[in-house]
């Protein structure tokens, strides 16, 4: 059996989708959330965190490369699976009456697309911009704290960020439980702890991310 057939089989495609997703979740989303929380502790801590991140450049670059690969695989397989499923499904004409499929599951391609748009905007907003400098313990450091405050003085930006975090939450709530089932761990239909955990993590992470722009906005009022 050749590798190509395995990879592009229905289960193979979903295993790659799940794996690339989990890599992004574990190596990017979780550390990023940890970093964001430091914002709440004021400019010195947040700026020094950003500075320390700079000293870890080899690791950061390694993770960045891994992220690029994961995003590419995830998007490629996601679009492929979604298109194949559209062809395989024949639309019924009468009203469908079961509600087993969750809203989050239905919206996976939409929330996925929104996250991609968000990532680009986010990179343009913060990563790929010249950063102002400030003084920290006698050193000159990038003032990412100030940059963040500055960005979120505009309510439009705050709304955009919060809205797109809803997409992140929706995406995660189906993604986590679905990935687990794809790996062969039984996720029951009813009363599943994995499903519950998946939802709690999604809500927790999305609101932690969303709270930063809101706090920043209120801070500058």
């Amino acid at each position, binding site marked *: 059996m050749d590798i190509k057939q395995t990879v592009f089989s229905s289960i193979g495609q*979903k295993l790659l989708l799940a794996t690339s997703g989990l890599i992004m979740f574990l190596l990017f989303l979780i550390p990023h959330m940890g970093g964001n929380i430091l914002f709440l502790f004021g400019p010195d801590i947040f700026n020094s965190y950003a500075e320390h991140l700079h000293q870890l450049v080899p690791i950061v670059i390694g993770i960045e490369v891994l992220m690029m690969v994961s995003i590419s695989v995830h998007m490629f397989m996601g679009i492929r699976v979604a298109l194949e499923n559209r062809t395989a499904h024949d639309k*019924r004409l009468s009203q469908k009456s079961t509600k087993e499929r969750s809203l989050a599951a239905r919206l996976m391609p939409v929330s996925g697309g929104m996250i991609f748009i968000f990532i680009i905007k986010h990179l343009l907003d913060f990563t790929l911009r010249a950063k102002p400098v400030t003084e920290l313990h006698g050193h000159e450091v990038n003032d990412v704290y100030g940059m963040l405050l500055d960005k979120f003085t505009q309510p439009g930006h705050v709304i955009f960020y919060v809205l797109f975090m809803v997409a992140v939450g929706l995406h995660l709530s*189906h993604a986590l439980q679905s990935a687990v089932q794809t790996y062969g761990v039984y996720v029951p239909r009813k009363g599943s702890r994995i499903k519950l955990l998946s939802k709690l993590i999604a809500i927790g992470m999305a609101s932690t991310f969303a709270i930063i722009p809101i706090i920043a906005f209120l801070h500058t009022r």
Partner: protein
Amino acid sequence: MSKKISLTLKVWRQNRGEEGRFETYQAGNIDTDASFLEMLDVVNDELTLSGKEPIAFEHDCREGICGCCGSLVNGKTHGSHERTTLCQLHMRHFKDGEMIVIEPFRATAFPVIKDLIVDRSALDRIIAEGGYISVKTGNAPEASTTPVKKALAEAAMDAAECIGCGACVAACPNGAAMLFTAAKVNQYALLPQGHPERAQRVKNMVAKMDELGFGNCSNEYECAVACPKGIDVKNIAALNREFIKANLKCEK
């Protein structure tokens, strides 16, 4: 106590190779003790007497074991009752004067043959790829030569309950045959008799399932709600495990 009810039916009519459409019929004087298919029989008698083409629908055992029957009734596979095939659905679950929409199972891999009959032979082709075990025929071997744990035997029986009606495919928003294939793979994977061909079976059956144009399972679980035999999604998890294990092994 049985009653008589009257219903309005909106039924999908289609000839092979032609466009389909809904036709409306009146079904009067229906006994509430009648099954859904018996109700269709009554309507068909009237259609035939008035010189019209009866509604084509598939049926055989009419006791929920053969897997022939099945339609979308008001948007639900086999109607609204859990764990019930269409032939076992009774008219007492409908109200007098109710309108019922009847449509064939919909999936790209299930082309309509006529009216409510769809071609489900794609499922047979998945079976032909490994949904069996190879044994020498002859006298049945002594039962206790191959001991099987009770729990395993029961789980295998649960998977083997699948009657191959195709409701899972029709209920799936992705038109996937994952629950069906999972049940068929798992009923053998759980038993010692299924082990010799285990790896090849799952690879071949999944490859065939993909080739026939079924979609990719995205764990929506609509299939498990639709299944008249209550096949559980744990079989899908087990199929995923079987697939991973089979592909990690190097041997053919």
